[in-house]
């Protein structure tokens, strides 16, 4: 059994997809190995629940396997897989009782709420003031506090590092909608982290 799939240097997505499309199950298995962690992280970031994230992980790979013949190769396989996983994750959010539905293309906001309230310089190495676990919790809590549609756009753009165009395509929303949500998400996270990481006991402009 080869272990080359775990080595991104030699990982050839297109070749594996081609083999998988002709029924090579081992090739599909290698694709799963390559992307399972990223898909699980994506699912956790959007759903924020372990049980839902597990369902999303399974459904995404099972559907990808089942519909591999529909993958046309005009985007990257990973982008196609992410699209399936995001759809599954959004469906989970909609199914949750008491959770507001996730509008896929709500009217553009005018930016009225795009304000920065917490303006403070960060400490030089704020991460050194916290343990790895504490940092992880601070980052996760901040993402948790975002509305699902902002969280989803932030996850795709800034964690998955998809382009604005890819994000718009995956979510089925306009490019201006992606940009506006990303701005709101980034500014909201900046506020949250600033509260934790700001330089203590100093006036905001003391450094100037």
């Amino acid at each position, binding site marked *: 059994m080869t272990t080359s799939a775990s080595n991104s240097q030699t990982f050839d997505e297109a070749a594996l997809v081609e083999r998988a499309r002709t029924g090579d199950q081992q090739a599909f298995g290698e694709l*799963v190995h390559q992307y399972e962690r990223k898909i699980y992280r994506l699912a956790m970031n959007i759903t924020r629940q372990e049980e839902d994230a597990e369902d999303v*992980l399974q459904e995404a790979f099972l559907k990808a396997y089942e519909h591999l013949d529909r993958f046309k190769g005009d985007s990257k396989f990973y982008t196609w897989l992410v699209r399936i996983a995001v759809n599954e994750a959004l469906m989970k959010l909609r199914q949750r009782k008491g959770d507001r539905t996730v509008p896929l293309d709500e009217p553009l906001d005018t930016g009225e709420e795009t304000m920065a309230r917490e303006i403070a310089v960060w400490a030089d190495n704020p991460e050194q003031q916290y343990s790895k676990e504490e940092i992880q919790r601070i980052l996760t809590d901040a993402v948790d506090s975002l509305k699902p549609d902002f969280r989803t756009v932030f996850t795709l753009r800034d964690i998955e590092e998809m382009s604005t165009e890819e994000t718009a395509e995956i979510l089925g929303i306009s490019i201006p909608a992606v940009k506006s949500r990303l701005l709101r998400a*980034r500014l909201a996270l*900046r506020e949250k*982290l*600033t509260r934790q990481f700001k330089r203590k006991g100093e006036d*905001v402009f003391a450094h100037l």
Partner: protein
Amino acid sequence: MLTCKQFLQELNDFLDETTDQDMKLRLQKHVNECPNCFVIVDTTRRTLEVYKGMEPQAIPENVKTRLWAALEKKMAARKPPSSTV
């Protein structure tokens, strides 16, 4: 000079360096002259850096086991006919 509100609307393109040269200069001028926006640019940039540096969570072993069990079941059910002859 751009107002802070106008600057904030362009913040993403400024951070992602996707503005044209003319806008870039106007935005840079604003940052140089506005201490508040200077701090916002710096802390937003650092926010993105912290998230980019976040390690992907490992999949819990039992979740992984169940994923592979589900996949194997699916694959067994869809074995190409030639393999059973």
